[in-house]
Structure formats: C-alpha cells, structure tokens
C-alpha cells in the first residue's frame, strides 16, 4: 500500500486527536497501576509463617491480618481500573527476599510483618501503618529475667537481619553488656533456640512473641518481659515513589479504620481462635498505640 500526503496528514490528525482524548480523560496511569492494567495481573507477596500477619493455615490456605488487607487492596484496584477480571498471582517471600523483589518489581504489594524504616525507604515506599509493635523479651517464667539489664553475659537469640537484632546489638554495644547474640534464621527457629535452652531469652516484636507462646507446647511456662526500647510501624511495601498506587493502598487501610472493618479484622486474628496447629488464640488486645493509630492513621516510621 502506498500512502499519499493527504492520507498521512489525516492519519496524523487522528493520532493527535486520540492523544488529546487520552490526556483529557482520567490522569494517565503509570507505575504499578499501569502495569496491572496492561497485564491484567497483580502479584502479591505471601509469607509462610508470619503468624498472624501472613501465613499458610492448617487448611493450606493463605490467611492473616495483613494478607486480608492486601486482598482488599486487590479488590479496590480491580474496581478503580474497571477490570472485568484481574488475575492475582502470589509469590512467597522471606525477610531476605522481600525488599529486592519489591524493588525489582517482581512483587507489586507486600503486606506482612515488615517494619517501615528510613533505610528501607531508600528502596521502597510504605503504605499507611497497619500495626505498631515494640521488641520485647520472651523468657521462661522461672528464668529470673525481668529487664533488659538482666541479660548481661547471657545467651540471647534474635532473628537474623531483623530490626530487633539491630536494637539488641545497639543496646549491647552501648552498655557493654557482653550479651552472646545467637542468630536464628526465622521465627520458628528463634523459639526453638530458647525452648531447647540454648538461649535464656528471645528478642522479637512483641506480637510475634505472643503468637509463639500461643503455639508453644506449654504456653503457661512462658512470659514476655522488658519494656520496648522503641516502637515500630508495620506497613505494606510497594515500589518506591509510586504515589498513585500508594494512594489506593492508603485509601483502603484508612477506609477500613474509619468503617470499623479494621477493628473487626483485628478481633478475628488477635482475639479469636485462628486455624494454626489445630486452633490457637493469641489473645492480644489492641494496645494504646494501635488505638491511637486507628484514630490518626500515619505512614511514617516511628
């Protein structure tokens, strides 16, 4: 086919019109939302055993407080983009892989027990905070340990690479306490280490310690002690600087907080039995920090 000049001109005009129309419509999509619209798929991160935030339950189904939040985000995205169908892909991540996978855009959204902090904000963005924790100590009731300073010269286990490890090392370095820090590779090994007596205490985010106690063979033997040295905020991770997508995720979380759905979801996972190891109840009422968060949502690290 040969094109004559008037034809080319009218084609160009048509293309120009199409461009104008696109610009005049809703703001052009970019980042995650554009990718979701173009491919018709969204990839959501899962965790194997971050109980009760994101885990596989006894029925081999993905569940968890943060997992359900991510499911609501998926629904909202589907509605906002007016997609007839949206394929949801899941990808299991670990604490080591989650940041690279969000940064290199393999994963679109990661909601589990991920602390929002300044270093991580170099690589990813965080949604509105959905949980506030503080690192504390898990000890046997007869251990005689009540405070952080009781740890001098003792073996203490902490999960490698976590913000709790960073805190424990800072504390140890600053006070010259000579704590022997044992590193565990995940939440379960962390508890195994203190259960088998290799360490006298385990340091982790308080909520995870309570979930460990709930799943222990004899929950009555254990207690959580030590005043948290600092508070931390869990948020959903998404790619850095993607304001449009962040707005959707933030909107879902603050909307849930306003509607009371957030508190209902909290009750479901933290106060009622969950399908793990038969059935366990974590029994962790909303802290004052959490109540404050629901009243005044924020997306800042603490």
């Amino acid at each position, binding site marked *: 086919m040969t094109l004559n000049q008037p034809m080319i001109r009218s084609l160009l005009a048509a293309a120009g019109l199409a461009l104008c129309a696109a610009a005049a419509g809703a703001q052009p999509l970019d980042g995650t939302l554009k990718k979701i619209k173009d491919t018709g798929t969204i990839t959501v991160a899962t965790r194997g055993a971050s109980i009760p935030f994101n885990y596989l339950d006894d029925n081999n189904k993905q569940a968890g407080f943060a997992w359900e939040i991510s499911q609501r985000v998926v629904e909202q995205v589907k509605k906002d983009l007016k997609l007839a169908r949206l394929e949801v892909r899941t990808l299991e991540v670990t604490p080591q892989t989650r*940041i690279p996978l969000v940064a290199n855009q393999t994963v679109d959204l990661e909601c589990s027990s991920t602390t929002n902090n300044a*270093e*991580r904000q170099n690589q990813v963005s965080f949604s509105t905070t959905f949980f506030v924790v503080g690192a504390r100590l898990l000890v046997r009731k007869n251990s005689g340990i009540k405070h952080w300073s009781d740890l001098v010269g003792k073996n203490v286990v902490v999960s490698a*690479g976590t913000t709790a490890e*960073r805190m424990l090392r*800072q504390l140890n370095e600053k006070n010259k306490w000579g704590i022997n820090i*044992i*590193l565990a590779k995940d939440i379960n090994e962390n508890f195994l280490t203190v259960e*088998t*007596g290799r360490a006298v205490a385990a340091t982790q985010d308080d909520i995870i310690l309570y979930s460990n106690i709930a799943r222990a063979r004899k929950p009555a033997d254990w207690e959580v002690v030590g005043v948290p040295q600092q508070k931390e905020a869990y948020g959903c991770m998404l790619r850095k600087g993607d304001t449009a997508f962040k707005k959707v995720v933030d909107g879902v979380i603050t909307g849930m907080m306003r509607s009371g759905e957030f508190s209902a979801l909290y009750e479901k996972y933290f106060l009622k039995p969950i399908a793990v190891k038969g059935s366990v109840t974590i029994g962790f009422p909303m802290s004052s920090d959490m109540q404050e968060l629901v009243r005044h949502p924020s997306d800042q690290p603490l």
Partner: protein
Amino acid sequence: MHYSWDWLIFLEPSVTGEGLYGLMLLRGLLWTVLLSLLAWSLALGIGLAAGVARTLPGRTARYLSTVYIHCFRNTPLLVQLFLWYFVVPELLPVDWGNALKQMNPTANQFLTVLVALTLYTAAKAAEQVRAGIESVPRSQKQAAMALGLGTAAAYRHVILPQALRIVIPPLTSDFLNVFKNSAVALTIGLMELTGQTRQLSEFSAHPFEAFIAATFVYMAITYGVIVLMRRIEHRARVPGLLGAA
C-alpha cells in the same frame, strides 16, 4: 527498576553501631576462610583414610568405610548440619547436652559446622581417593607384592604415590566446594561471608550491592584455590605418568 544504587555503602557505619558495613563483610570472610581451610585439612586426612580403607583386603575396614561414605555422601549437607546442631545435643546424656548448649554460642556453632562440613567433604574426597587407587593398574600391586612388599608398604611406596597424583584435579573441585558449602553455616547462625552479606543487605537496605560484592569475593577465593592447585599439580607431575610430557 526503582533501585537506588550506593556503592559507598561499604564505607558507612553500620546501624548496629559495630563498625563499618565493609568490616562486617570482612569478618564474614575471615570465618569463611578459617572454617573452609580447617574443614578441608581435616577432610583430606579422613578422606584419605576412608578411601584407602575401601580398597583394603580386610572386610571390616571396607565395610565401615563404605557405610560412612554412603551415609555422609548421599544426604544433603543442610540436613546433616541440622542433625548435628539440633538433634545430637538432645540425644547425648542431659549434662553433656546442656554443656554443649551453654558453651559460647559462636564456638558451638563453629565447631558444629566444622564437624558437619568435614565429615561431608571427607566422604566425597574418600570416593575420589578410592577411584584414584582403583585406576592404578592391578599389575602394579601384584608386582609390589612379588617384590616382597606388604600391603602397607605397597600402598605407601607404589599405589598411593600414583593414585594421589591422579586425583589432584578432581580434588580441586572438592576444595572449591568446601568454600561454597561453608555458606550453610548461616542457617545455624554462624555469620560467615554469605550470612554477613544478608545482614548487610537487611540493615542497609542495599541488597544488590551486598550480594554483588560477595560474588566477587567468592570468585577471588575460588580463583586463588584454582591457581594454588594448578601449582601443586604441576610440581607433583611425574613425566610419563597420566600422559604428562
């Protein structure tokens, strides 16, 4: 990709207050080198003994070494390490188990990995040694016997000097594997090179720089091993043997 690169991260102080990030990697490197060299030296000795035992005429020695090699060569190193670290102390008498668990954690982790890595590597090396011995023509042994040498003397003066030269190249790859396998130490909390790399990537939120740096360090180590083994191979070479001119 939305990734902010920062290659100067290694010169920044760690958030844990324990020195520079680069020093974390260096500490990890020291553990890796110490662990691997020790495990390799011990494994060479055990592997040589077990490999020779597999070819001896005596039944008991042959049987024992066969069982050892099969158990340790045919199960994953990670499984073995977990057994040594978590299960063995529970099987020992309670006092011994507790003594093990209460010792300095780093020493405990180091010794556990050392045992696991040594026995695993030795089982592999033993198979190489056996193959080397079996590749020496049978007539050599018969000739040695005919000269009046006993089994020990035949191995010492005739068979092993040839067999060990033959197995230098395959042993080189076992030597390389020790360094790579030593990374399993991080699963029980000994922060060798890979472990420290993970720590660095978590604390600094610069995972790509950390792992790229570790890749180059491992490559440098293995290259060093290859050069060393080439030298040994060259110096041990006997003209006429193995087609070496």
